[in-house]
């Protein structure tokens, strides 16, 4: 299989680490070679966080080049636009959870907030297909799994199926929250 590159981003605290770990483990359960890397450290404190996942092909580096990600997954609208502009490959897909964590300059009244239309317009300009996710959830901290659920439904990651994601979640989540997360994964 040809290598499939994914770039993920969001705001520190949204659970991008879990999202990326689930995708990596799911790809492994599917028997595909996989590697990845997250940004850590300072960025956890409400700054931008990013993660790279590369599935299939020869494993070289976990880092993906700008404009080369076939799939961009973003957990927040502003970060979706940023990620799209920097990393999405033409002809690729942007999958984003449509919530807004206003950046500082918006809160200070120095910049306008990014709208859903801004993101979708930029997708058209860059020839990237967009999929916007909004869902009623039992807990806002499940937005990452809701995003994943859509990726499964639309078969956005080649070679990785629902059962692989399910196994990955079983590997990673404690019993007390597993069932509810599996419900979000398998629901619509």
């Amino acid at each position: 299989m040809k290598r499939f590159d994914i770039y993920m981003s969001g705001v520190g605290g949204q659970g991008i680490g879990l999202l990326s770990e689930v995708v990596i483990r799911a790809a492994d359960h599917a028997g595909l070679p996989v590697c990845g890397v997250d940004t850590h450290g300072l960025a956890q404190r409400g700054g931008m966080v990013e993660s790279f996942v590369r599935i299939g092909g020869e494993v070289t580096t976990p880092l993906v080049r700008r404009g080369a990600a076939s799939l961009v997954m973003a957990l927040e609208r502003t970060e979706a636009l940023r990620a799209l502009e920097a990393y999405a490959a033409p002809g690729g897909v942007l999958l984003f959870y449509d919530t807004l964590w206003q950046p500082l300059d918006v809160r200070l009244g120095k910049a306008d907030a990014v709208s859903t239309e801004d993101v979708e317009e930029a997708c058209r300009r860059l020839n990237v297909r967009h999929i916007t996710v909004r869902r009623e959830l039992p807990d806002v901290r499940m937005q990452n799994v809701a995003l994943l659920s859509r990726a499964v439904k639309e078969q956005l990651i080649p070679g990785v199926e629902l059962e692989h994601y399910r196994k990955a979640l079983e590997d990673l989540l404690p019993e007390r929250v597993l069932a509810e997360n599996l419900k979000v994964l398998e629901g619509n």
Partner: protein
Amino acid sequence: MKSLGEMLQQQGPFSEIVLGNTALARAMIESGTEVITSYPGSPTPEIASALLSIPAGKRPFYFEFSTNEKVATEVACGASLNGHPSCVFFKSVGLNVAADSFVQLSLMELTGGLVAVLGDDPGANSSQNEQDNRHVARMAYIPVLEPSSPSEAYRYYLEAMALSRRMKMPVILRMTTHVCHGKEKVAFGAWEKKAPGTEPRFDSSAGPSVPLTSAALEMKRRALARLSLAGCEMDSPAFCEVRKGSDSFRGVITAGLPFRSLLDVLEDSEQSPDILKLGVVYPLPEKTIEEFLRSHKQVKILEELDDVMEKEIKALAFDRGMSVSIIGKSDEDDWIGEYTPDKVSEVMAKTWPDMIPLRGAKRQPSLAPRPPQMCPGCGHRSAFYAVRKALAKEDITVADIGCHTLGFLPPYKVGEVLLSMGHSTGTGAGLSLFNKTRKVVSFIGDSTLFHAGLPGIVNAVFNNHNLTLIVMENGTTAMTGHQDHPGAGRNANGPSEAIPIRGVLEGLGVKSIREVDAYSQAKLIELVKEANAEEGFSVVIARHPCMLKYTREQQRSPDYVRKSVEVDQEKCDRLHVCVESFGCPSFQRDEDGTVTVSPELCIGDGSCIQTCPVKAIGLRKESRGGEQA
């Protein structure tokens, strides 16, 4: 859920997807490392998280977070002198703190072996500089292995420990940020559980271990001889890999993550140079390098950060009278930043544009960066908001390292100078000299105070300096992931004596000490004004537990009720103090100026309520349980 602790203890071989840092933890266990010490700092703290995932009674090693990197080095050294295989790990700039003892390690007869894992941070992702610690290795006569992936990190640690034990010398394993944090499947080996020997093995006749008078020179000679011998041993295919390309005239010598980036970049090129990938970066494997230089007409040294290999390889070629053209760094850009695939593509396009042309237009996002900030409910925010009010505009504020460093960002702009861990009292003292008009206020966190803050405080008392120090006490080492510190009452192994900060300050002779909860803004303003009005050295302790840690602990309880504040839109006059001056990220501003509270972010701490001039902020009645990993 898979348990990390159980996985690491598994005695048979297995393969698992792990972080580079986790792979190192397993290597420590497999190699029989008995004593492991550290001070938390990115990119290395996940090594400790992995080690500590094994319950205290079951660990086949002793682990501690020491007070600072120097003490951590000394504890590991002492253990090794007593025959225990030891490891110390910390971040890049931690080596500066450790240096005084670290540079002596190669002079010792380290009978147990000692591996130092250094987490360098090219790109300064979470550090105040991107220093290249290979320079220090050269100064300290310590060999350096540099892995380029988690699998190599695992293998190199095993090799490093074996070499260290055999030659009784220190060995450095130099990690970089994205090797520490890279994830891939690593095939681990087996290990046998053995209790560390309790018979003390320290033998002063194995030394000398006191580098004074002529012994210092004798010990240096021994260090140099060992270094040279280790260099010869590592000049082997185990640490040097040659990959043939399509162009046998041109070659690249590289190491670490830049090697991986180069492979990625070459996937787009029809032609490729030969590559010599080095796993040992000090001392350089001269035989292998000489052979590579002789068989090429042009050799590019692809090296992240400084030109350490470049200088040595050029000198080697000169000594051997070789005519090969060696291409090093061309401009400042080549010295700066992490060698990601994008960066390597730029560097190589400058070197051989015919072979590796720059592809694609540069993609620059249109948005301003999103800097990190203090969490909702952070006591530091409340403190900065209040301190800003207590100070005159021209007063000088000095930050230290920790979460509170983020106060330098708008809207607080508190903390105008930053050097290093624990610097703030010393730097503040210097700023106060000959200065009769602008008050100097320094800040320090509690973990940093124990780490390297005490000498500056002693100096302020000893030399009668005129400044105020505000201790931002949150009870933990928050920035690096909530490790316990000497004031916490717990260490990595269980309960311990909590060292009280007030008691320490009193013991050091600080006469003026005030304490307040950081949420009590009016009181804090009053105390900072009082302290500032005094001549001499004064301390204000602004205390509030780390709310990220507290909230996470609360969320694990089944009785957890999520709280939040709300803005009463009837009362709100859109003065925007909450969004613009207090600046909690939970407040969101609509285009028409309406302020709302994000239920995703707010933790209902209520530290904002007192900041609203029209009392429009209040606790929301609605409550909700729930938990998530």
